């Protein structure tokens, strides 16, 4: 089913493919809208997130402002998804880096024990 991003009744609604966007990234994005908007995430169907923001105050935003907000939300969702990819892909290297930085040499080779491996990258192969 085809979903179209839209502005309806003062609410901005954006749809995001669940195979492309992570839930974490959407929440991280919506976090920054929480000061001025009711922010909501739900499923439009099993493959599509429905992301919506609605101004908290009763004041109506102008149609230009709403249009800009729609653009901003679309852009922010992309930005936060990209950030999330970097965070997740680099988590192991980051853990290793910080372990090394605060160690007294014990991490100069490989970190002992199990390193968390959420995205299927095994550092012990290097």
């Amino acid at each position, binding site marked *: 089913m085809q979903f179209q991003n839209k502005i309806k009744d003062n609410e901005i609604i954006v749809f995001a493919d669940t195979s492309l966007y992570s839930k974490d990234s959407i929440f*991280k994005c919506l*976090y*920054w*809208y*929480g*000061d*001025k908007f009711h922010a909501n995430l739900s499923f439009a169907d099993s493959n599509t997130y429905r992301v919506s923001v609605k101004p908290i105050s009763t004041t109506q935003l102008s149609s230009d402002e709403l249009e800009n907000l729609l653009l901003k939300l679309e852009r922010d969702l*992309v*930005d*936060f998804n*990209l*950030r*999330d*990819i*970097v*965070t*997740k*892909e*680099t*988590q192991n*290297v*980051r853990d*290793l*880096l*910080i372990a*090394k*930085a*605060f160690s007294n040499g014990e*991490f*100069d080779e490989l970190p002992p024990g199990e390193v968390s491996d959420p*995205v*299927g*990258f*095994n*550092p012990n*192969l*290097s």
Partner: protein
Amino acid sequence: MEANKVDRKSRKFKDFETFDLKESTQYFLLPFRFHRVTAEKEIIVNEVGDYLILPNGTFEKIVKRQINKEIDAELYGDLIANFFISEQAIPPLIDVLATRYRTKKLFLNYFTGLHIFVISLRCEHTCHYCQVSRVTQNRDLYDMSIANIDKGIDIMFKSPNSHVTMEFQGGEALLAFDNIKYAVEKAEKIAIELGKGLTKVICTNLAIVTEEILEYCKEHKILISTSLDGPQYVHDKNRHKPHASSYELAVKGIELSRKILGHDQVSALMTTTKLSLDYPIEIVDEYFNLGFQGIFLRNISPYGFALRTDKSKYETDKFLTFYKKALDRILDYNFKGHYFTEDLARIFLTKILTPFNVGFVDLQSPAGLINGVIVFNYDGAVYATDESRMLAEQKDFTFKLGTLDDTYNDLFFGKKAQEISQIWANEGLTGCSECAFQQYCGADPVHNHATQGDMYGYRPTSDFCQKNMEIIRYLIELMESDVRIKKIFERWAKTATH
């Protein structure tokens, strides 16, 4: 394409043995963060604070592996050299990066340096935004007792830091000058015995300073830190002194202090109030004309009376406008060949442009409280920061760590300290964790608590966040827009580390 044939373990990470490393699109990402600086430019910042400014859209290309080693050779080289990407899963120079990271967090090695002794709560000023001082002659009630001074010194020298700073604050600290003398002489003796460095500072409005006091300061190498809010019409409105001009006394005191102690032994701090916001140029000019080498454009503290009186309320937006106008003026002086800095910018720029960090308690992660500063109150209570004791004056004891009768361990590693430590690193805070400016910024649980009601804080409405994010972004925008400004900023950052 070869990589398509392999059984991928994830959407993004492929078995790296299957990579042909000569194939230009195959690289690994290293930890870094991203922010939009202007409509055309974006910034990426790595884990040790190195940054690259790039045209919009580049971040997306990097993540999507669309940077080609041959076609985008220069960018590719920059990304590799600055640890944003690597051709191996674990970069061969990871130990170099780890050392850089350690350097950025070196302040943790030293632990508490600044020990604030609130030597007296008495004051002869009645500033409208001051939340703590008392106009009284009652020494017994509002001066730190000799017994508490002894205990404070004892705790101070238990710090693992090889160089400690003892800062006397008030009220008006000079009203208890005899006690300061006692504390200085005792601490000097112990410092020599223990082989530790000791810096002594008196924070004073200089209204009651005398030649005799200053001669003593000279003999004991005590630094003077005073308050100057700008020209007379700003300063005197902010700092009310019955039957006298606080400004005239401050300026006279600065001159006398410089004459006796030496020019560089006297510093001044300004507090921005609602009134100050209308005079960015005049305030900068005042500092310049009085021969200071810089100014620290500080936000007013949100504590105590300052939070409760309308007089001191103003929005961060207005502060930012004020800040930018003042910074422009400061840059003008620099364009004309003068060396004149803005110290908040200097702190950020040192973090942005050098491998080092700055021991500034409000902008550290883990936060500066306990790790960098501790406050011994006149009544024997111990607080995490200067702001914490101001909260306590409003009966909010959230950041009271104990009293001078407690042990060092209980104060610095006790339950309260542990509770605060859960949220004192911005690396682990929502909003901050993916913020490109994380390495340049810090965490301030006391500020969060005072302004938002909880230590964790909520970044979208945080004035701390709004202010820091915009100032950092603005500094970067300025550097990118004018090579002269970049040179000036580099000089400021360089001199801050010497």
